[in-house]
């Protein structure tokens, strides 16, 4: 039956059809829905792990136990899981292991734009790259077969436009292979030097055999031009993933296309033959010139990043502009587009009305704190008017960096610096940083923003919430007890809706001459179980238009005719603005 499916949903369908029985992942845009959709199949065991490294190692264990396993993550998540990945390349698998990594060219929801193909090359793990939902589904099943045949984990690389686009898929039945018995095999699975030395040649040989497979496989295919290119020359384009779609959209059948479904290892003969058949050779790939450099290493003359950008996403207009001259023999001139003359105010993402982080960041800004930030919704605390974050690097970096910042600051930083990290991010990579503060003793103040959910990626459970991926009760880590057990004497909880209490907690912990943890606790206002208060309203007779309430950057508050105005459709009655009003102009609406 034909269905429209999101790339990530189709990927999950492919896992299901291929008999995957174990999924362990950490959420990250644009990869999250693969695991969320897999969790909807009762036949598959699914879980959110505390981080990507744990997820990948759990998937390794499941493979050892003889069941096809999966772990999914975003591009930066693969950095965290790189440690197991590079050595799983040596051990290989028992039952198949498939890893999803989703890149985010264009950085729709990421802190960098790294190209995950580098990890595949460096770890010597094969990587497939689907170009639409149907390929996401079929590649998942193919990947398991390859994983078991070649004794290797297989990475499937998604990107935002494949992961988050719906296209047509045909579904198939689920087939579950028999469980493979676990057999003790020290030379294969115990990677100490004496064994790893023997496994490395296996890895090199495996990649040679896979490169051989790449020469004749169905997923690397040539689509020959059927009409002559306008410039009379035969043009060949090598491409993969969503770039393939833009190439076909713009140049149709006037160019020959080598569409690569496997991007590591890359074929040699297939590419050389394709080059021979064409007069002009172009590689169209987003981000880094990996296929292009491979072509150059084969001695081929090829266009690529001399014409196309290294940064950001591609699109059909970009290809017309950058390649039109070469392919068509004439520069593409875009038509004048329609637009109004008025400047259009930007609409950047903002913290939601009632977001518990708002009161905390307002207080940090008021106290002129240096704030070492982390990854999550609360990164938006860096946006005006709160402007309360100084750094954002990677998961967990706030807690680790504040220690260095304070130790090297010659006593100037402790009294005014905090680290802020969300509950899920703290579970992911914050605990080890906290251990360093406890062990090497800096007078650091760490604030855990506990909104009882993984927010930014769309509300996933984590080890502090007490629920698992299916919403069933699960283990629950007690943050206060955890911090105390690490040796922190000063651990306190505040409600960030209470500005006075929050201000007092921050002042006291910054003044204390010892490490401390503040848990700023209030569930995300978007959680279904959170009961909202009635919206507040402004008594315009009392309002003096002083704009004190505007300092918190709440999207529900604006100024109308010199007075504060509340958007009742957005306001959840959190009451933070009321605490800022010097004249008590905010009033509660009647039932």
């Amino acid at each position, binding site marked *: 039956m034909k269905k429209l499916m*999101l790339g990530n949903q189709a990927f999950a369908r492919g896992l299901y059809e291929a008999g995957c029985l174990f999924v362990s992942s950490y959420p990250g845009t644009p990869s999250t829905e693969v695991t969320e959709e897999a969790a909807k199949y009762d036949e598959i065991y699914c879980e959110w792990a505390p981080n990507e490294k744990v997820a990948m190692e759990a998937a390794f264990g499941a493979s050892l136990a003889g069941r096809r396993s999966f772990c999914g993550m975003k591009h930066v998540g693969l950095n965290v899981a790189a440690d197991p990945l590079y050595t799983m390349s040596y051990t290989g698998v028992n039952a198949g292991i498939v890893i999803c990594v989703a890149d985010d060219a264009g950085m729709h929801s990421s802190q960098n734009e790294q190209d995950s193909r580098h990890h595949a090359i460096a770890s010597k793990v094969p990587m497939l790259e689907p170009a639409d939902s149907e390929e996401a589904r079929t590649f998942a099943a193919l990947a398991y077969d390859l994983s078991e045949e070649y004794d290797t984990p297989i990475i499937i690389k998604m990107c935002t436009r494949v992961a988050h686009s719906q296209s047509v898929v045909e579904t198939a039945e689920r087939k579950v292979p028999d469980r493979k018995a676990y057999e003790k095999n020290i030379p294969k699975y115990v990677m100490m030097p004496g064994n790893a030395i023997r496994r490395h040649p296996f890895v090199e040989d495996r990649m040679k055999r896979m490169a051989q497979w790449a020469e004749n496989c169905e997923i690397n295919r040539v689509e020959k031009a059927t009409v002559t290119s306008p410039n009379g020359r035969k043009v060949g384009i090598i491409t993969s993933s969503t770039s393939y779609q833009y190439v076909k959209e713009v140049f149709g059948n006037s160019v020959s296309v080598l569409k690569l479904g496997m991007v590591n290892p890359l074929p040699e003969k297939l590419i050389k033959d394709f080059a021979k058949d064409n007069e002009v050779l172009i590689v169209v790939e987003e981000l880094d010139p990996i296929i292009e450099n491979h072509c150059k290493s084969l001695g081929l003359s090829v266009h690529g990043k001399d014409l196309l950008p290294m940064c950001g996403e591609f699109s059909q207009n970009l290809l017309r502009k950058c390649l039109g001259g070469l392919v068509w023999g004439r520069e593409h001139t875009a038509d004048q587009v329609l637009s109004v003359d008025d400047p259009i105010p930007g609409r950047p993402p903002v913290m939601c009305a009632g977001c518990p982080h708002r009161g905390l960041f307002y207080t940090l800004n008021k106290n002129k704190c240096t704030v070492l930030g982390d990854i999550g919704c609360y990164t938006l605390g860096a946006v005006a008017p709160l402007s309360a974050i100084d750094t954002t690097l990677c998961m967990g970096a706030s807690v680790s960096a504040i220690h260095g910042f304070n130790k090297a600051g010659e006593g100037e930083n402790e009294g005014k610096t905090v680290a802020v990290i969300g509950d899920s991010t703290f579970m992911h990579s914050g605990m080890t940083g906290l251990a360093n503060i406890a062990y090497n003793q800096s007078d650091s103040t760490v604030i855990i923003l506990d909104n009882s959910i993984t927010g930014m990626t769309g509300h996933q459970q984590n080890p502090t919430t007490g629920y698992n991926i299916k919403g069933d009760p699960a283990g629950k880590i007690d943050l206060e007890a955890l911090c105390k057990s690490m040796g922190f004497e000063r651990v306190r909880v505040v409600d960030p809706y209470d500005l006075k209490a929050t201000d007092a907690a921050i002042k006291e912990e910054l003044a204390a001459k010892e490490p401390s943890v503040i848990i700023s606790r209030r569930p995300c206002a978007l959680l279904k179980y959170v009961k909202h208060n009635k919206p507040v309203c402004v008594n315009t007779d009392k309002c003096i238009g002083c704009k004190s309430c505007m300092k918190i950057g709440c999207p529900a508050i604006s100024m109308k005719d010199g007075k504060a105005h509340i958007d009742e459709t957005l306001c959840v009655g959190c009451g933070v603005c009321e605490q800022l009003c010097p004249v008590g102009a905010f009033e509660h609406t009647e039932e």
Partner: protein
Amino acid sequence: MSETKNVMIVGVGGQGSLLASKLLGRLLLDAGYDVKVSEVHGMSQRGGSVVTYVRYGDKVYSPLVDEGEADYIISFELLEAARWLPYLKKDGQIVTNIQQIDPMPVITGAMEYPTDLVEKMKQTGAKVDAIDCLSLAQQAGSAKAVNIVLMGRLSHYFDMPEEAWQKAMEAVVPAKFLEMNKKAFELGKNV
């Protein structure tokens, strides 16, 4: 061989464009087209400007709609219609809700919300159908039905039988909201 057609659904994160694109996707798939629907997830959903691309035809390649390519722009909010206007084809049609939601630069007073946007968009030569979807949605029974009011209005321009829309709605709208949404659809269509 029919040419690929392009629809953009634009609005503010959280306004409910997902159901609209789901409905449209279902309608077009049932009509036998190849369809691609491209969404945005993650950070920009937090009250930011959001866009969904819907493309259909005999064979659709790119999931994106680029500048100057949209046959239709369906907008949940007036400023967003103006923001994405450069994506409209010369003879394209805009269907927009007249609701205005102030973005942060306007809230903080750094910028003004432009006035008379409907007129100004028309002056560029764009065909603009501006309607008060929020009132119609409330009339149908829920402010959340703005998305279906807009789809009803789009049906006015789309060459697709009424029954096909009804069937698609039955497939994607939860049963308990179906009657309300059908009413919203009618109100949008006949405004």
